[in-house]
Every structure is written in C-alpha cells, then in structure tokens.
C-alpha cells in the first residue's frame, strides 16, 4: 500500500484550479476508485459523473494526465505514480463543476440525425439479414457514448468549427447509411449539415475510443469515399448525368 498525490481540477464554470489530495493506493485500483476515496475522505462535494464502474455506460470520461480516458477503466498501475496524477474535466464541453461538463450538445446533434427508415418486412413478418451484412455496423453499435472522441477531435476542440457533427455521430450516421434495411440517402446532409469535410482523418478519435472502434478507418473514411463518389467524382457525375438524360 502506498500514497499518491492526485491533483484534481476543482471549480465552477471553467473558473478553478488544481487541488491536491493524497490517495491510498491498493492493488488493482482504478482512477475512479481514487476519486471515490477522495470524496469519502476529503471532499464530499467533489462533482463527478459515473454509473457502472465497468466501462459500459460511458459516464466517467475525463482527462487523466492530459489524455482523454474513462476513469473506471484506467488502472493506477498504468500511471507513473511518483508524479502527481492530474485529473481534469473534458475540455471541449462547457464546464459545470469540478469534473462535470455539459455534454447536452451531443444530444442535440444526435437529434438532427434522421432515424432509420426501414424497408418493409418479408412476407413472413420477419427481417432477413445475414451476419456478414451487419457485422460492419455492429462494431459501430458498440459505442457507449462516452463522448471522448467528441472531446478530443481538434476540429471543435481547437478550431471551433460549428458545422461539424463529430466522430461519434459519423459512426452513428455510418451505422444508418450502411444498414441493410435503411432506405434513406444520407450523403447530402453528411456533407452540408454534418460537415464531414472538416475531418482531416488525423485519427485522434480512434486513439481515445475506449471501445476500440476504428472510427476513422471503418466509418469516416468509407463515408468520405461515399461522399466523394456522390459529389466529387467527375466521371461518375458525368456518367450519372448521361444515364439520367437517356432515361
């Protein structure tokens, strides 16, 4: 058993400072345990979100030593404990208190995405889908909405672009666009409303995703290719206009 110093951002509405707390480290402990220990022993009102403590709900997102992570899935023995452990809230979102930020923006973006519009059922009342048709999107459905990718993406974090949905919602749109039952074409809004062109595929979203979803490679790049095919491929455009004239 040993003691380690934690420095936690405390304050309200982005005004605050790093406060030091000493934590007793035990075997197998994760960062969230340390936070809970600090709450119980030193700072009753330290604000933090968490639910499951098993990496399933995506509530406990924060920046640990500057890296966006889930606190409940960050083991203390991964961190250098000779230096203080720095815990800050996600920087991208409006700050509320201590480690809690206002993530409601993400819910608003999600609201803009048109829901699945499925084709009709088969005659026997079922839907037939083969495993190979859905395995690609099943990966996207693993998302636990921790919003770490939304937080780290430089397009909004640094560059403050407003017309940009962000990686979490690109995988959601990908999961609809590649859905074997979906009947909508989502490429125009992807380009114009959700701003996929702002993504410069630098893959920070993929780097931080706790569910190991290959966000950039499996969702964003394929979507970019689809958008390219629909809007930026001169020969394809020519071909389409020729065939539509001849019809």
């Amino acid at each position, binding site marked *: 058993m040993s003691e380690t110093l934690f420095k936690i951002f405390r304050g309200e509405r982005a005004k605050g400072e790093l406060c030091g707390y000493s934590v007793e480290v035990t075997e197998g402990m994760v960062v969230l345990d340390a936070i809970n220990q600090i709450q119980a022993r030193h700072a009753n009102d330290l604000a933090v979100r968490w639910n499951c403590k098993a990496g399933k709900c995506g509530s406990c997102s924060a920046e640990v030593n500057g*890296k966006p992570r889930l606190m409940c899935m960050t083991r203390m023995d991964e961190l250098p404990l000779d230096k203080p452990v720095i815990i800050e809230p996600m920087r991208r979102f409006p700050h509320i208190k201590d480690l809690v930020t206002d993530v409601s*923006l993400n819910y608003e973006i999600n609201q803009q995405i048109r829901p699945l519009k499925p084709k009709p059922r088969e005659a026997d009342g079922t839907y037939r889908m083969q495993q190979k048709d859905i395995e690609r999107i099943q990966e996207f459905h693993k998302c636990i909405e921790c919003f770490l990718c939304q937080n780290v993406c430089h397009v909004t*974090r640094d560059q403050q672009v407003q017309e940009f949905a962000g990686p979490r919602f690109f995988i959601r749109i990908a999961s609809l666009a590649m859905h074997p039952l979906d009947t909508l074409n989502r490429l125009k809004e992807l380009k114009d409303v959700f701003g996929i062109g702002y993504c410069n595929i*630098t893959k920070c979203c993929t780097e931080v995703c706790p569910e190991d979803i290959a966000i950039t*490679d499996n969702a964003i790049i*394929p979507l970019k290719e689809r958008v*390219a*095919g629909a809007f*930026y491929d001169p020969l394809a455009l020519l071909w389409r206009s020729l065939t539509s004239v001849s019809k």
Partner: protein
Amino acid sequence: MQNSFQIENPNPSFLETSRRDFWWIEPFFTAIGLLAFVIYSTWAAFQNEHYQWESYLSPFYAPLLEYDWWPFSPAFLILWAPAGFRLTCYYYRKAYYRSLFLTPSACAVGGRPQNYRGERFLLLFQNLHRYFLYIALVFCVILSYDAYISFTFKDGLGIGVGTVIMTLNAVFLTAFTFGCNSLRHLVGGNVDCYSCVNFGHQRYQAWKFVNIFNMNHMMWAWISLFWVGFTDLYIRLVSMGIITDYRIL
C-alpha cells in the same frame, strides 16, 4: 435543420497540453521521414542519370518515357502519379496534417491556430484519390514487369541483389496499393447489403481481402516508401560504379 452547434469553452492555445508523455516523438520522426524522402526523391529526379544499369531501372524513372520534346529529366513525366497517389492517400494525409501542418500535432495537444477549413475548399482535390489509385494499379503492373525484366542479364536469366530489391519493391508497392481505402470502397465497401446485390458474396470476399492490407496500411506506406527510395539508391550506386551488383544465381 439547424446546422451549427454552439461551443463555449475557450480553445486550447497552440501546443497547449497536460500530456506528460513524449507525444512529440511521433510527429517529429514522421516529419523527418517525410522530408527526407521528399528531398532525396526530388534530388534523384533532377539527376537525370544513373537510373539504369543493365536490366535494372529505378522506380523513379519507370516507366521510362524518353522524348525529344521533353527537355527535363524523364522522371518528371511520371513521378506526378505516384507522388499524387501518396499525397492524397488517407494515411499520408493524416501523417502530414499532423507532423507538418500541426493540425493537431498529437491528440489533446493544441492545434495550430489558422483559418481551418478541413478538407474543403482547396483541399477538395483529396477526393480525387481514386483516380490516382487507378493509375497506381497500372504502376503496380509496370513495376512488376520491370521486376520481371530484372531477371534478365546480358548472359541470360539470373538473379542479382538488384533483382531481389526490385521484386520486393513491386511487392511492397502492391501491398500498399491493395490496402487503399478507395480500393476498399470500390470493391465492396460501398455495398450496404451483400446478400441483396449481384455478386454480393464475391464483393464481400474482395472487401475482406482488401481489409487485410488496409489494417496495416500505415506499415505498408512506410515500408514501400523507404524501399522505393532504397531501390533507386541501390541502382544509382551500382550504375555509378560505387558498388557492384552481386549475382546470386
């Protein structure tokens, strides 16, 4: 539809971060690697000599297009194609946006403040990557043919160290090209329901096949980049007489 999403926090300033690991190592070495290649290849293309030895031909000059009306190095007649292919490759884009443009240089490190427009406006040409892919596929054939030719020597069939190097060059370039994201899209990625379309199963298999290379696209990008430069260097040194090609068979 509403199309702007409000942001309130001040943005992190340039290079600001709480990260305490050596996050700058990767962009640093990436930048060095990319710049070194650009400098060497430009220099080699300008040389306009020592690109051939016996049946060996430097990939910077393949296919060899020598015309009277062209006053410069023949390399420039072809180099735009592989250069454009790599320049618009999704992996290289990531690499230079990070290490050269610094948008951002590493994750959760403040990006370069600029009038950021992503891959829109000027950078829309990145969407032409698929055309460079078509050409690159032709180059894979050409370089394979050159590799095949490199088995022929004045005294008949044989294998020299240069043969091996050129063959590997063709292999690495093909592995890199087969992992291309545009290829992945074309062969099957654009299909939503494999069991609903014609040749769905074949397209699924083809997509799976491309995925294998795509997963290590970054690795193939670097291996093939290094090797193409190395191939040129080897042939150059041999033709300059600085080293002699060793005949294995």
